[in-house]
């Protein structure tokens, strides 16, 4: 287990600062335990699960890919929720917005969908910075918690209805980009979903580098650990807030772009991911990027493999069951630091 030496604010969210020396001696117990639990559960499904092996392999593959999608949505949220402490109800709506942005660029502009995704990143980043700087900063700086929550809720309604006004509610589709699929170990995976999975890992890696390896990352972590302290040593807290929200939105832009090719776009398509993303962020540990990825993969696996036994909504019951269990035994999340 790692402890954050900078976590002096017990109530606030924490970015884990691993003490490198101690980490090499002491393995992180909780993630290992969770990994072991997942492996054991899968082994049980294969051996005594009474389901055809090919089907189980397929559901594991589908679950991992789905988990990649969940992770993509969650890494942005874990920054906003974990660092700024803002319950961003607009996360799903911003995801939808990014998808429609990509849709518009690729249908009207004829830009290939993955190029459009790259173009959407700076746009959504600016959008996020603007939202935080103009709408939220005053309230977050004053330590108001309900205000930002209500504003993001309003923002999500605004985004969804503006999209409805412009595009109508009929399902839209981004023209095919990379069709085709690959078969690995009797499990079929489409390239589009594999690319989204790769994108999730890439985004998570880039974010980790940013947080750990740059001075800006250091100031984000400082603000997260102790806002007052950070501002005393000269960190421009409101600027860090705005940029962090911007980065969180940029992650959503990547998510939206990579998911658009395999989803039917309606103005409410992103909403369904909001609740699960919160579950994943809390499951993984607030503000922990690796936690969001692992949490996403676990939820994806539980949902898909679980559906073999509890079809339909039953698989979602399993998801929330796992969530409650983790919260009970490890309230700070799998990768969360003890406080």
């Amino acid at each position, binding site marked *: 287990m790692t402890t954050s030496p900078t976590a002096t604010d017990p109530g606030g969210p924490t970015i884990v600062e691993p003490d490198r020396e101690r980490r090499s001696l002491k393995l992180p117990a909780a993630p290992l335990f969770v990994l072991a639990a997942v492996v054991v559960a899968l082994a049980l499904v294969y051996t005594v699960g009474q389901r*055809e092996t*090919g*089907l189980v392999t*397929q*559901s594991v593959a*589908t679950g991992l*890919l*789905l988990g990649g*999608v969940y992770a993509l949505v969650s890494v942005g949220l874990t920054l906003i929720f974990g660092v700024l402490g803002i319950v961003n109800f607009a996360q799903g709506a911003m995801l939808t917005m990014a998808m429609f942005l990509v849709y518009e660029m690729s249908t009207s502009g004829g830009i290939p969908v993955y190029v459009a995704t790259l173009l959407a990143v700076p746009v959504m980043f600016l959008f996020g910075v603007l939202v935080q700087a103009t709408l939220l900063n005053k309230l977050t700086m004053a330590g108001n918690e309900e205000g930002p929550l209500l504003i993001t809720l309003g923002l999500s309604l605004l985004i969804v*209805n503006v999209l*409805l006004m412009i595009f*109508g*509610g*009929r*399902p839209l*589709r981004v023209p*095919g980009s990379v*069709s085709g*699929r690959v078969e690995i170990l009797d499990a*079929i995976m*489409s390239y589009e*979903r594999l690319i989204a999975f790769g994108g999730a890992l890439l985004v998570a890696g880039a974010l980790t580098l940013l947080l750990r390896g740059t001075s800006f990352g250091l100031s984000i972590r400082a603000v997260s650990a102790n806002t007052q302290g950070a501002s005393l040593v000269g960190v421009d807290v409101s600027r860090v807030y705005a940029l962090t929200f911007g980065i969180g939105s940029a992650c959503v832009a990547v998510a939206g772009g990579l998911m658009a090719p*395999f*989803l*039917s776009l*309606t*103005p*409410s*398509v992103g909403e*369904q991911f909001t609740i*699960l993303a919160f579950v994943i962020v809390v499951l993984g540990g607030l503000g922990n990027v690796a936690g969001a990825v692992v949490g996403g993969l676990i939820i994806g696996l539980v*949902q*898909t493999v679980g*559906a*073999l036994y509890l*079809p*339909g*909504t039953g*698989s*979602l019951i399993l998801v929330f069951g796992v969530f409650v269990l983790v919260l009970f035994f490890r309230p700070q999340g799998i990768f969360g630091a003890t406080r």
Partner: protein
Amino acid sequence: MKKVSLAAAFAASALALSACGGSGSSGSADGEIMIGAVHPLTGALAGVGSLMNNGAQMAVDDINAAGGIEALDGAQLTLGEGDSKGVADSGQSEAQRLISEGAVALVGTYQSDVTANVSAVAERSGVPLVIDVAVDDSILEQGYQNTFRIQPNATSMGTDGAKALIALAEANDEPIESVSYIHIEGAFGQSVFDAFAEEAEANGVEVLEEVTYPGTNFTDATTQVREAAAADPDVIVATGYYPDSLLIAQAVEALGPDVDAVYGVANGGFDDGAFPGDAGQAGNQVLSANYHYAATDERVQDIRTRFEEEYGKPMETASMLSYQAVVVIAQALEEAGSDDPEAVREALAGIEVDDPLLAFDGPITFDETGQNENATVIVMQIQDGEVEQVFPEDFTTSEPVYPTNR
């Protein structure tokens, strides 16, 4: 006089009185008769909801252009628009609002749960409701006198869907022995499945696997399709809405199971005009048993052409049903010779609307529960990027391809 009744209506609504007990108020004194339409105009279903509202509006315009209601000295119709937001409570309050503003009849609402609430309002107020789209059997099982439904219910769609599949397969010398069924959870999917399974088993067709999936957080159908295909059925049958049905078709294409056909029953995706384009190769030759506008009828073709000119979008079947519902109400007004909701209800109960705009077995007539007795499904197939009507022969626009060479 109009002012008086309008003022009364407003006062009633201001006092938050739900219009109870067949008040029979109507804003018709100056020759305008209001029909209330309740559809999801915002929210996740806003797309189809606004198309349906447009369909109803177009019917009103067409009837007005043709001289209005002759029996009432050419009285003009107006459409009162209500937004259910896709939520039962909102639909209910919007229905109440429209009735208190003087609607003589209601059309709506696309969703079964919303429709159930609106039909209760209609019953209390003594104002007839003509359901354009809402599939659940239970809506008409309440013993209500004021609710009528043009489309077939879930059970008859499941039953007729099974009959049509078996007949289609036999007609093409490829009789089926077994199916696997994938459907969405909830009353809609379950009741269609139950009826299909009963009819299929009665005809010696085995249902090998029933796979269900949730209506939310469903973004990949690979596992479900693989589960259905594992039992090695002759046909994979699917019931659901648009996005999920698209996922299922894509998963079938990806997995390439050895089946004779993919067959939708009451499927909200497979016969949608946008489906062939969205699904691409995955949609090719997919079959679908559903109620559908009569594509072979010239009047229907004319309405659809003008609809697309007017609203810039193709007119889907749901939209045509809204159009039809208004036409039915207009005919009831003619036959009643009155705009009293009670008289309109009486006329609806005994009505016979010839030449329906839907591909039905005969004229629209309602049985004692309010169900259209001649409502049925036809089979469609996606061929060369178009939704074609392929079975039964009376309605065909193209020959069926069966088994499909997937």
